[in-house]
């Protein structure tokens, strides 16, 4: 019996060796890695991202793929943390068949993976909007920030608030994580540049649920308007608690406030809030509107920014592969640098500088739980 078992086991091991072919079978597909949070506090972003990846993969493969091959999007879980993002990135990067990798939608996590991206020498597109991330991308060789940075958007919203809404005094409340802290600073600078004054700058840590202390400070400051920069869940909680405390002044928020997930969570509390964002489900962009409709028809939910971003990242990477006419990583990266006007669902992309590759944005106001476009921002704003 033992002999028979030993023979069977040996046979299985030998057969498995033949199964582990080199790049033979995987050469039929072009692999694109995607590092997004599937677990943790920001798992909702991962859900939208993987949903969008399925749609885009089917779309591209249905149209003949890229260079005659199907694309395959390989997802790893960043767990919503910088450590998780780095581990997931390294796991994906270890696969020699991976041509490019899409980083998470968080500047902190993107900065965390930047070293690994440079060492791995793999084209990596990042979804974060922080100016710090822009600097990292422009300094490196392999990272591309496919997004308009907050430098342009935050200032534009504050200029709008002061000059068009007529608000002069502000209290700025922001998360301490990288992107939100940057947004808080940029909002404050934008207020000052537009001629307004910042009465108070109040911060909180990610994961805070009870904002009584922060909102009591804001109440005490007595400003005409409140500016909030945070992640989706905290944005929804803080606006709800702010309204519950009877604070009725106008609220201006970072891009999280215009997002489908935040609007759904906050409900009627978010009515009237202004936000600056790159994406709304009812976007005037033709490609965006088509993708938004397809997403809604497929999953019976509005298309969030996290989904639209993945759509554009995959298409830009595929465009770079087509222009390189190769899946060689260096050739694809070099081709990416030559993309200067690629129209996506969110915006058009100029990748020549690696940072701040997206252009323009939207100032929206939430009306009847729908982000309504108030002003379109060009790249000059």
């Amino acid at each position: 019996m033992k002999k028979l078992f030993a023979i069977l086991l040996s046979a299985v091991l030998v057969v498995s060796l033949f199964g582990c072919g080199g790049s033979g079978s995987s050469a039929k597909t072009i692999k694109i890695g995607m590092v997004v949070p599937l677990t943790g506090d920001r798992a909702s972003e991962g859900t939208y991202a993987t949903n969008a990846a399925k749609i885009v993969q089917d779309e591209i493969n249905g149209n003949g793929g890229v260079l005659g091959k199907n694309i395959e999007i390989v997802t790893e879980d960043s767990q919503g943390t910088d450590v998780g993002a780095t581990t997931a990135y390294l796991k994906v990067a270890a696969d020699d068949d991976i041509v490019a990798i899409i980083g998470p939608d968080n500047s902190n996590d993107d900065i965390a993976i930047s070293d690994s991206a440079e060492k791995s020498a793999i084209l990596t597109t990042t979804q974060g909007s922080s100016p710090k991330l822009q600097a990292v991308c422009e300094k490196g060789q392999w990272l591309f920030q496919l997004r308009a940075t907050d430098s342009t958007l935050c200032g534009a919203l504050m200029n709008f608030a002061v000059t068009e809404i007529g608000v002069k005094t502000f209290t700025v409340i922001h998360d301490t994580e990288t992107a939100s802290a940057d947004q808080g600073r940029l909002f404050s600078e934008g207020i000052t540049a537009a001629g307004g004054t910042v009465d108070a700058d109040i911060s909180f840590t990610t994961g805070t649920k009870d904002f009584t202390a922060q909102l009591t400070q804001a109440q005490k400051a007595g400003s005409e308007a409140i500016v909030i920069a945070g992640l989706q869940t905290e944005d929804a909680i803080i606006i709800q608690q702010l309204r519950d405390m009877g604070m009725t002044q106008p609220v201006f928020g970072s891009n999280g406030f215009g997002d489908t997930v935040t609007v759904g969570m906050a409900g009627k509390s978010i009515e009237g809030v202004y936000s600056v964002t790159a994406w709304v489900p009812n976007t005037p962009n033709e490609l965006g509107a088509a993708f938004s409709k397809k997403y809604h028809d497929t999953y019976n939910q509005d298309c969030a920014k996290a989904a639209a971003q993945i759509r554009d990242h995959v298409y830009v990477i595929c465009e770079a592969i087509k222009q390189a006419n190769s899946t060689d990583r260096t050739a694809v990266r070099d081709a990416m640098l030559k993309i200067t006007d690629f129209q996506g669902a969110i915006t058009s992309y100029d990748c020549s500088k690696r940072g701040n590759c997206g252009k323009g944005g939207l100032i929206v106001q939430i009306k009847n739980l729908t982000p309504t476009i108030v002003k379109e921002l060009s790249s000059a704003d």
Partner: protein
Amino acid sequence: MGIIYGLIAMGMVLIFRAVGIMNFAQGEFLMLGGYFAYTFSQLGINIVLSIVLASLCMGVVGVLFMRSSYWPLRSAQAKAIVVSAMGASIVLKEGARLIWGALPLNLDRIVDGSVQIGTASIRWQFLVIIAIALVLMLLVYFLLEKTFIGNIMQATAQDQYMASLSGISVIVSIGMTFALSAMITGICGGLIAPIFFLTNTMGATSGAKAFAAIVIGGFGSIQGAFVGGLIVGLVEQFGGFYISSTYQLVIIYVVLIAFLMFKPNGLFGEKIGEKA
């Protein structure tokens, strides 16, 4: 929030008194209670009844948790049981994500709106939480001190061996303790979910603060756990307002460390020893 921390801490102390182990999955009981309440409310059931039904479900969860994570390891070292509870915590968290999804969910409040008291605006939901918490405290006190079942649970908590010699079914008694603990914490989940949204990670921070409440109140003391929770809540808010809103958690744990240094038994600390 101090009241909520106190209730969660009370649930942890009940288990600690019964089996001598700190249950690091208590935060996940909070989370599951919220999700059960959400599920029942989606079936069109009134929110109050949904929370009641959720607490009954949590009672079952508590018993299953005891049978799977504690009972097989009851003779093993304490650290094995602690690790088992931590593992169960991860299973519950990710299981909730698989069942209910990753998107944060909203639950109806029992009472909407807020009331103005002087210059302060207090949400009605918070007042409801305070009222329900006081009722739960009284019920738990009544159960443990005045009923036969409570006597059984306390006897088992004091000395399992003697309790079994007296004819008490230890497994049933411990099961009831876990069920009661899970029910109390599950009710908390249903109460705070409308304010803080339902996510599968909502239990983590609350559980950690509840542990701080136990240390401050005194291990093994139910009233200490409740008072400790109130102290944690007050420190969190007043520290956040007067010292720093960014470092609220740091302030709580500095106070915790101070208690450990100067009053390690806590405010109502008592030692549960074996009777000779």
